[in-house]
């Protein structure tokens, strides 16, 4: 059905434009030149593709970890894997899925889509953009290299002090965690500053703030949260690193340190982080729902303001993760109230999406199905969230599988579902081909069944008293059936993800060719060929409305064809971003030597790279 939709304007035009993805992404100089082209690229589109590829790789790793966890929990008193391996698996599963999958997948879309949506030729700082990616990749690989040493992090993704102290975690496990996360954090920070500058400064003429596409808006808000929240976790990680490598006392109770401070710093970052995960997906479906309803987004300003409000209030709710630490009645009451308040702007958005669909000419493409899936599943996650916003309820549910069910409903059912919608929606823009709708629907329905079968029972398992992060449970609890259901669901979910990955790979070669605007979508990225030329826009467009391809001068029969003209001069490739990333990573990794001056070697490498970078002109004459 959707293939038919795509072909309305699609295949005939696509061939005429003649931009093959293969020709765009390979170098005529051969394999080595192609590799060098990618390593030194500063093109936001290539960087976006690399982010997505790396994150999908980590998705498979994190998914495998999840399946091992579920096998262990399938039956009571299982001895499939021991407690120690189990600890490493759930720690790495959480850390990987949040920092190496959900965040970079969103960043992949920021990279590829935002400059196109705002009518820019690239981001504000193309080389810094490359640096962000390489730092992220090295951090992620370093974190996962811990498996090779049999010392994967094992103190959970929240790494509560003082379990992470040398006294209680003498191995290398926590070293890998604190260093890996620090490196990845640097990447997020640089990226955030880049996107804030890009969105403020590189908008096309006429693209005022209140005409910006919602995805760009949510990227903007998310980047602000990153720019402000990452420094806080950076400081917490510095304290932990100092405690471990330089024997300081930040989280040593005997010396006056307070482990609860770790929790505060972690969650001051950690709760805004939740919105870092969800807002990009809110942005994605705010593009997808109007496009496939053939209606402008209902209440655009409200959705924008709600997003900004979520970003701000998200800063005032962190201690709801800490009710069980005994903050006292005043603090508890404050954080209960603020947590309940933040549900309001979130709920508002749900109604905006529903109202956009109301009376629209709905087209149930896979992208649209995932967008609707987000609205449904995220709402369930939101409701369970309001339950444990209440401190007394939370005291019962804390650290139980109820919480596991809740945050998987929000992060997988919300963030990841939205990212899937984004993949189906923008894939034709990136590759010039549509993803298979048949496989897409298989993906969607197996996802819905697998996801809900995995996590819905966990609400009950939690309320019946099963704690999280424990590697097994006695048969007398009577939870074997629920857990087996979860495990079966997880495997269906796993199959569903493989269908998705297969669809991504297969469609790149065999998908239906797509025109510039296969969905008849309203925003600027659809005005350039699919895939876009490396300079995006031959001429910078003028924007006259929120939906430039639906209303205004750009709308019309020929709107989808970029005009010709001389190729704009674009920033030159550079090897310094990847080398600087190596220097930064090395600085952190050398901390493991536990000799104070050794990391300075990495710092020296970084300094040399930064100087070389600074003195290399961004634009160089073509050789």
């Amino acid at each position, binding site marked *: 059905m959707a293939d038919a939709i795509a072909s309305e304007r699609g295949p005939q035009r696509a061939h005429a434009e003649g931009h093959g993805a293969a020709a765009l992404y390979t170098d005529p100089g051969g394999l080595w030149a192609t590799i060098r082209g990618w390593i030194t690229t500063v093109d936001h589109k290539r960087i976006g593709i690399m982010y997505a590829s790396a994150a999908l790789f980590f998705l498979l790793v994190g998914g495998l970890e999840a399946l091992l966890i579920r096998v262990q929990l399938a039956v009571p008193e299982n001895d499939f894997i021991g407690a120690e391996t189990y600890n490493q698996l759930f720690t790495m599963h959480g850390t990987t899925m949040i920092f190496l999958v959900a965040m970079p997948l969103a960043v992949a879309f920021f990279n590829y889509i935002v400059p196109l949506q705002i009518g820019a030729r690239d981001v504000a700082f193309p080389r810094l953009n490359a640096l962000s990616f390489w730092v992220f990749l090295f951090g992620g690989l370093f974190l996962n290299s811990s498996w090779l040493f049999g010392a994967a992090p094992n103190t959970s993704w929240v790494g509560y002090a003082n379990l992470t102290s040398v006294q209680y975690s003498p191995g290398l496990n926590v070293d890998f965690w604190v260093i890996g996360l620090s490196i990845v954090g640097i990447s997020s920070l640089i990226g955030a500053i880049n996107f804030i500058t890009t969105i403020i400064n590189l908008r096309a003429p006429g693209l005022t703030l209140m005409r910006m596409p919602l995805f760009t808006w949510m990227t903007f808000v998310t980047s602000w949260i990153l720019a*402000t929240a990452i420094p806080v976790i950076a400081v917490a990680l510095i304290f932990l690193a100092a405690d471990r490598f330089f024997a300081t006392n930040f989280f040593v109770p005997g010396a006056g340190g307070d482990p609860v401070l770790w929790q505060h710093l972690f969650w001051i970052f950690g709760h805004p982080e939740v919105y870092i995960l969800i807002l990009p997906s809110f942005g994605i479906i705010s593009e997808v729902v109007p496009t496939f309803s053939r209606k402008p987004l209902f209440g655009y300003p409200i959705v924008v303001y709600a997003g900004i409000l979520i970003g701000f209030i998200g800063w005032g709710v962190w201690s709801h993760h800490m009710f069980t630490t005994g903050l006292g009645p005043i603090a508890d009451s404050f954080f209960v109230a603020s947590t309940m308040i933040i549900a309001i702007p979130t709920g508002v958005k749900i109604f905006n999406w529903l109202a956009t669909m109301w009376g629209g000419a709905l087209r149930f493409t896979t992208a649209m199905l995932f967008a609707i899936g987000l609205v449904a599943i995220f709402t369930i996650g939101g409701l369970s969230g309001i339950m444990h916003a209440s401190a007394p309820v939370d005291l019962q549910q804390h650290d139980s599988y109820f919480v596991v069910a809740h945050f998987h409903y929000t992060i997988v059912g919300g963030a990841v579902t939205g990212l899937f919608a984004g993949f189906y929606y923008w894939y034709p823009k990136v590759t010039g081909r549509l993803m298979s709708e048949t496989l897409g629907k298989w993906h969607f329905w197996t996802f819905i069944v697998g996801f809900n079968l995995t996590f819905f029972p966990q609400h009950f398992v939690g309320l019946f008293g099963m704690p999280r992060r424990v590697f097994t449970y006695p048969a007398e609890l009577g939870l074997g059936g629920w857990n087996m259901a979860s495990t079966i669901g997880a495997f269906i979910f796993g199959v569903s993800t493989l269908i998705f990955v297969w669809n991504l790979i297969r469609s790149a070669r065999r998908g239906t060719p797509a025109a510039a605007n296969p969905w008849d979508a309203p925003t600027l990225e659809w005005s350039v060929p699919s895939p876009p030329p490396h300079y995006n826009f031959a001429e910078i467009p003028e924007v006259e409305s929120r939906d430039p391809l639906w209303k205004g001068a750009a709308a019309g029969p020929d709107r989808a064809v970029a005009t010709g003209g001389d190729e704009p001069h674009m920033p030159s490739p550079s090897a310094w971003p990847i080398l600087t990333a190596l220097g930064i990573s090395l600085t952190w990794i050398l901390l493991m030597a536990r000799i104070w001056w050794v990391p300075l070697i990495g710092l020296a490498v970084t300094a040399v790279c930064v100087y070389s970078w600074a003195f290399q002109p961004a634009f160089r004459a073509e050789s």
Partner: protein
Amino acid sequence: MEIAHHPPTATGLDNRKLGFWTFIGSETLFFGSLISTYMVYKGAAVTGPYPHEVLNIPVTSVSTFVLLTSSLAMVLALNAVQRGSRAGTLTWLLATAIGGLIFLGFQAYEFTTFVHEGLTIQTNVFGSAFYVLTGFHGAHVSVGVLWLLTLAALTAMGKIGREDSLKVEIAGLYWHFVDVVWIVIFTLIYLIP
């Protein structure tokens, strides 16, 4: 080609300056978290030396004065480069860097004295919070000094002219920010008992 270097922006503001202000905004949270920790741990140390036993107000007042004065030198450097005075730019950039170096000298003296008095980064939670906070500030000053010396060298080689005043301005933003962080540290850590 020149146009490609600095395409007009939606706001008319330079990308580098806007990006740098955003970075400074982000840095407020970095130092905010470090300062919070120091404040949270105020009075938490279970063994000495305690803050009032080691902190030297007269000496730190002098180093604070030096850092503030270097900020003045920094704006004068910017003023000079905007007027197109190469000698003025060079003089004031060097003066700023020297101010930074003197401040670092004071910090080195302070740290050494503290260690002699028995306060290391490992002694107690006060030592940990103090050294990490002021150490990161000192690291920022060091980066600033390197940056200023680089600009001074470029100015001496005639590579920084009026049209490059933004380069001096951004270095200045960094320098003044490091200065205001010290203003906060001096009050909260040194003066408030």
